[in-house]
């Protein structure tokens, strides 16, 4: 214990500032003079190298621990700078993951847990379900998960009641829970709040977020009515039939299906992709955990070419009967 204390005191000596935080410790400045006066002290040159080495180890451990304690930063943001009575507006939970860390999609896959938001809204305000942009597939031995690295905006539509007082300020609060994983997993929680003014006039967009929210919307799974999607289950497999529209002249390849429901599809299993005369068929192994198949297959089909004529939107919502 004594060694620890003295090592900690040297952290300050080395110029790392003292802060009121578990990562940093307060220090007395007299240490340096001890070596000159008392040659038997551990601060004397002969044992100083060993002490510096211990300090290096301790400080890197402490700093590493500090970084890992915050793998995710959460923030509530509003698309608009103000709200109008009776109007719906978009709010986003912005999650910033530290490098190599990820949080999860609504179907986390084989492991993990989806981010949850519990809204605390003023009277009469109603929040919708989370709108999830399409995730990345994360693969490690035996486990396939769906999640987000870097930064993600999870959108929620909130509707203001007609009766909200004009020229007032409302507080939008949320309790957020997530699971952040890299090699190991750390559950996280944040209590977030933002204030928005209520105004009679049409709200202005918050310029800081326009670009990123536009990109998020582009990554939201959508229905594309010109594509025909059918699903069937047979012989322990699930087949997804994709019939392209007339205007699609390319050759579909690199299609991924991310199921919304857990326990239907074997996420580890190989997909068989067939290009037939009038349609494409993806064959996927059913999950070991699928005792009973559901009535409908729900999920997202991702195509690198995009599903609309302008190619930008890569995620198609699948919500079809599962024919057996």
């Amino acid at each position, binding site marked *: 214990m004594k060694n620890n204390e003295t090592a900690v005191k040297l952290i300050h000596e080395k110029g790392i500032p003292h802060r009121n935080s578990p990562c940093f410790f307060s220090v007395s400045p007299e240490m340096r003079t001890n070596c000159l006066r008392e040659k038997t002290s551990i601060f004397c040159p002969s044992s100083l190298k060993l002490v510096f080495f211990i300090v290096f180890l301790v400080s890197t451990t402490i700093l590493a621990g500090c970084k890992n304690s915050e793998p995710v930063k959460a923030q509530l943001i509003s698309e608009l700078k103000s709200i109008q009575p009776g109007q719906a507006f978009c709010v986003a939970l912005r999650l910033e993951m530290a490098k190599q860390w990820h949080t999860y999609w609504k179907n986390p896959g084989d492991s993990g*847990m989806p981010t949850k938001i519990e809204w605390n809204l003023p009277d009469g305000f109603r929040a919708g379900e989370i709108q999830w942009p399409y995730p990345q597939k994360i693969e490690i031995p035996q*486990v396939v998960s769906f999640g987000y690295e870097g930064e993600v905006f999870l959108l929620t539509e909130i509707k203001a009641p007609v009766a909200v007082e004009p020229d007032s300020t409302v507080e939008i609060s949320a309790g957020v829970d997530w*699971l952040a994983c890299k*090699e190991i997993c750390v*559950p996280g929680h944040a209590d977030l709040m933002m204030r928005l003014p209520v105004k009679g006039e049409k709200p202005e967009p918050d310029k800081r977020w326009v670009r990123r929210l536009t990109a998020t919307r582009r990554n939201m799974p959508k229905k594309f009515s010109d594509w025909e999607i059918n699903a069937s289950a047979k012989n322990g*497999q699930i087949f997804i039939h994709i019939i392209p529209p007339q205007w699609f002249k390319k050759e579909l390849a690199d299609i991924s299906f991310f199921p919304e429901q*857990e326990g239907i599809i074997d996420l580890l299993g190989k997909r068989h992709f067939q290009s037939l005369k009038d349609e494409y068929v993806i064959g996927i192994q059913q999950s070991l955990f699928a005792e009973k198949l559901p009535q409908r297959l729900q999920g997202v089909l991702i195509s690198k070419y995009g599903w609309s004529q302008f190619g930008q939107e890569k995620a198609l919502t699948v919500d079809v009967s599962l024919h057996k």
Partner: protein
Amino acid sequence: MKRRVLIIGTMLTGFLLILSPLASAAEAQVGNPAKDFSLPDSTGKTHSLSDYKGKIIVLEWLNHGCPYVKKHYNSGNMQKLQKTYAAKGVIWFSIVSSAPGKQGYMTPEEATETVKQKNASPKAVLLDPEGNVGKLYGAKTTPHMFIIDSDGILVYNGGIDDIRSTSTDDIDKAKNYVQMALDELLAGKDVTVRTSQPYGCSVKYK
């Protein structure tokens, strides 16, 4: 003629390969005989599944660093299950498939010490640092539970219960599939819920 047979044969094989389910899925499929294996425990003794013929066996994939495992150990839930069913003759193995250096890995000494610390009562903690038995069973998460009946058939493969969370508050609210299956087996009945989506941290394989 020979060439035609060869072409047709190849096409047929290819066609069958496309339609046949992946071999690895059969390994941990409920209703199939559980695959035998041998692993050392934390005291150095080797256990094979076949040593316990005629017994009901539980396999519990373990990693004490995982928040989901902590949920079941800090609450005493896992220890309670181990103790209750050991008293009824069930053989309970905790298995660690974490590779050295990865979360959950324990040396034999650490494993023995941890059993004492956690007041756990598995028959043994089996050490699988190579991950071979984990992969044989397709263990995905910690915890991931497997139950083998006294005829050696895998009768349960899945999560410990039906609430996928790290909160100890959810334990009493959840349906404990392991408890349900063991009670049914001990009463001479068939297991009604044979699989469920396992939840937890991914097993930290090599």
